[in-house]
């Protein structure tokens, strides 16, 4: 795992002092709320419906047991005993008091954590494939480059007042598990015809009220040029992105209005000016960072563990969890375990302090002291021996963390919604709870299979509803909560934006509507056909008829 060097330590320490001073000046009245807002936002501190919310960065979603234990400690001491994992692989605390925040940041600094650039119109926490370094289909660990981007983007003096927020994701695998096409910049490591490794650079993806799939501006970018090219993109955006309308300020709108060829031309022209400048990445530096992400000292195992296979045959519940939540690992005899934070009736992404402590223990005992957070708001133990899985599963089960639903219909991404957020039009959490409970009780989850169902409480789309097989969007209709349904979206390699299926449903009717969509899918799908494939084959009509009756 990456460990801070003296530069990182110094920066984070100085940042705590700087923010402590800013809070003191705000409390003393020397800073107006208008002046303080961008300062606190650049440090992940929002003012929500009921309280401040602090968002803590988990760079590329990787953290150690010690770090997870510190998050639990903060949840206990400064919050109400829980935290909420987010779609940017971060964690949010919902109830800190303003004057405690500098102390919380000082606590975080002791375990090499911070809240820098987790909000505001800056380059946000760079995300990566949660299976980085362990997936079988991976060409190279994307965290090496996410870490280089973290450094380059941290307190970048030129890009700290961008037109709008800016999100970057990196993947090094064939399957896109980082939703790169839904980011302002998506980077995909691949090999060119000459066999060299470099990046496909996608720009202008995003969700929000105008969902867009990112477009390729560069098919192949050599690694040495990564930071220079990013700087060129950001400079073009900083200079030309709209600042007159917050809803048209993201880079996707700029790319759309100039056209992708013209935009790519502007970037290339800027890149030509700086390509041999100070940002060139020397191969030695890449190798130095690579060493920070070197694989742990795995035991050399012959292959699948015989006792593990026997245990699966003997215990149906354990076997079912393995089917849904355990993924193949590149190292023989090892596995990747997805830990679902989506129990039926629970709040998606929430974990209690006790659960966080357990996750820290399990990481230390069984996973080379490493955890991952996924944008699907779950946790991953990335390096566990198959032989240890049953013990892990029992411990998880005792803590309410053994829900066997990873990537199934109840593995719901949901934003905090109107229960917390002052932008929301409708509640998301109770809808997720209701649907989760209903689908679990229907006993059909396994039959439905892999299916993404996401919920956002407003058009800002923090719950990724556009990028789901079934997306649910909360809207306000004359003061009442209604829910619009989109179908056919996908965040993966076959990226697609969901299509609105028709008029919205009331809070009381939304779970029934979801059930009718699933009935339709189950009755019309061909053998083993995924929801997206059925949707593309049969189109919207059967679903419309099921929801609204024949036209």
């Amino acid at each position, binding site marked *: 795992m990456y460990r801070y060097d003296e*530069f990182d330590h*110094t*920066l984070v320490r*100085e*940042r705590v*002092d*700087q923010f402590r*001073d*800013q809070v003191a000046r705000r409390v003393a009245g020397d*800073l107006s709320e208008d*002046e303080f807002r*961008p*300062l606190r936002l650049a440090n992940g501190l929002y003012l929500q419906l009921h309280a401040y919310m602090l968002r803590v960065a988990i760079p590329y979603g990787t953290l150690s047991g010690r770090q997870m234990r510190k998050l639990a400690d903060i949840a206990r001491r400064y919050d109400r005993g829980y935290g909420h994992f987010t779609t940017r692989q971060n964690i949010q605390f919902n109830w800190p008091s303003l004057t405690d925040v500098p102390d919380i940041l000082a606590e975080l600094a002791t375990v090499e954590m911070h809240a820098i650039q987790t909000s505001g*119109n800056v380059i946000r926490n760079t995300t990566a494939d949660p299976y980085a370094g362990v997936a079988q289909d991976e060409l190279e660990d994307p965290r090496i480059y996410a870490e280089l981007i973290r*450094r*380059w*983007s*941290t*307190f*970048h*003096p*030129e*890009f*700290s*007042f*961008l*037109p709008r927020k800016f999100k970057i994701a990196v993947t090094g695998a064939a399957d896109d598990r980082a939703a790169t096409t839904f980011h302002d910049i998506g980077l995909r490591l691949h090999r060119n015809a000459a066999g060299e490794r470099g990046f496909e650079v996608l720009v202008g993806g995003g969700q929000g009220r105008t969902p867009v799939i990112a477009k390729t501006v560069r098919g192949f970018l050599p690694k040495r040029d990564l*930071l220079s090219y990013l700087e060129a993109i950001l*400079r073009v955006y*900083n*200079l030309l992105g709209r*600042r007159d309308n917050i809803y048209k300020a993201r880079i996707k709108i700029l790319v759309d209005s100039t056209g992708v060829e013209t935009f790519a031309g502007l970037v290339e022209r800027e890149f030509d*000016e700086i390509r041999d*400048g*100070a*940002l*060139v990445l*020397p191969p*030695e*530096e890449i190798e130095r960072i690579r060493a920070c992400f070197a694989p742990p000292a795995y035991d050399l195992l012959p292959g699948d563990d015989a006792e593990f296979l026997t245990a699966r045959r003997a215990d149906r519940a354990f076997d079912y969890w393995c089917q849904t939540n355990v993924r193949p690992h590149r190292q023989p005899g090892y596995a990747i375990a997805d830990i679902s934070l989506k129990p039926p009736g629970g709040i998606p992404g929430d974990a209690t302090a006790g659960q966080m402590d357990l996750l820290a223990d399990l990481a230390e005992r069984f996973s080379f002291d490493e955890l991952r957070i996924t944008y699907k708001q779950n946790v991953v133990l990335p390096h566990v021996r198959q032989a240890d899985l049953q013990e892990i599963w029992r411990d998880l089960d005792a803590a309410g963390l053994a829900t066997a639903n990873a990537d199934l219909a109840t593995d719901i991404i949901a934003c905090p919604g109107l229960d917390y957020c002052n932008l929301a039009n409708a509640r998301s959490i109770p809808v997720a709870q209701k649907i989760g409970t209903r689908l679990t009780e229907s006993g059909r989850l396994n039959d439905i299979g892999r299916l993404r169902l996401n919920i956002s409480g407003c058009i800002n789309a923090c719950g990724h509803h556009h990028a789901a097989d079934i997306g649910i969007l909360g809207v306000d209709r004359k003061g009442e909560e209604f829910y619009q349904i989109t179908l056919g979206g996908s965040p993966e390699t076959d990226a697609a934006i969901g299509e609105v299926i028709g008029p919205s449903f009331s809070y009381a009717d939304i779970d029934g509507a979801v059930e009718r969509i699933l009935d339709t899918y189950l009755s019309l799908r061909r053998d083993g056909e995924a929801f997206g494939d059925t949707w593309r084959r049969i189109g919207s009509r059967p679903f419309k008829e099921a929801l609204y009756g024949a036209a």
Partner: protein
Amino acid sequence: MALLKNDDIVADGWTRAGDDEAIGDGILPIVSLSRWQRDREELIGRNTGIGIVLKSDEPPELIADDIGRFGVICLDFPKFTDGRGYSHARLLRSRYGFTGEIRAVGNVLRDQALFMRRCGIDGFEIADDSPVESWRRAFRELSVRYQPAEDREPPDIAEPRMRPYLKETAIGSRLH
């Protein structure tokens, strides 16, 4: 307004001249881009120093051919959230080789001062009652540099603490 340069309030030798305002003898004027474009020959003919103020939507390439004629280039920040001036400052230093004063004017706040300085801005138009000590602190709040920019460090910071691999290539100049 007061002018902060380096760590101190200094006398401002320059005078803002309105677009239709007569410029008296011995005045070092700062003019708008539109006046510069309209009165260019006349202003050059005065044979005094000239300053210009660029709005945030007026990129430096508009004065690229005349860069060497200006003693000061003011970058206007209409709102502190309008970040175009940061890119403009960097381009003035790195692409157009401007070595005179780059002055931030408009909504210039001490919590943005470090970023501005790192982009090559070395003059700050600040409120008369603004506590200078607080600005001095602002320039020193973060001593670590994760990326090369147009850094000019305060004299008491011996070495910019730059990532080692960047240190060798970055163009860091000393502030005097």
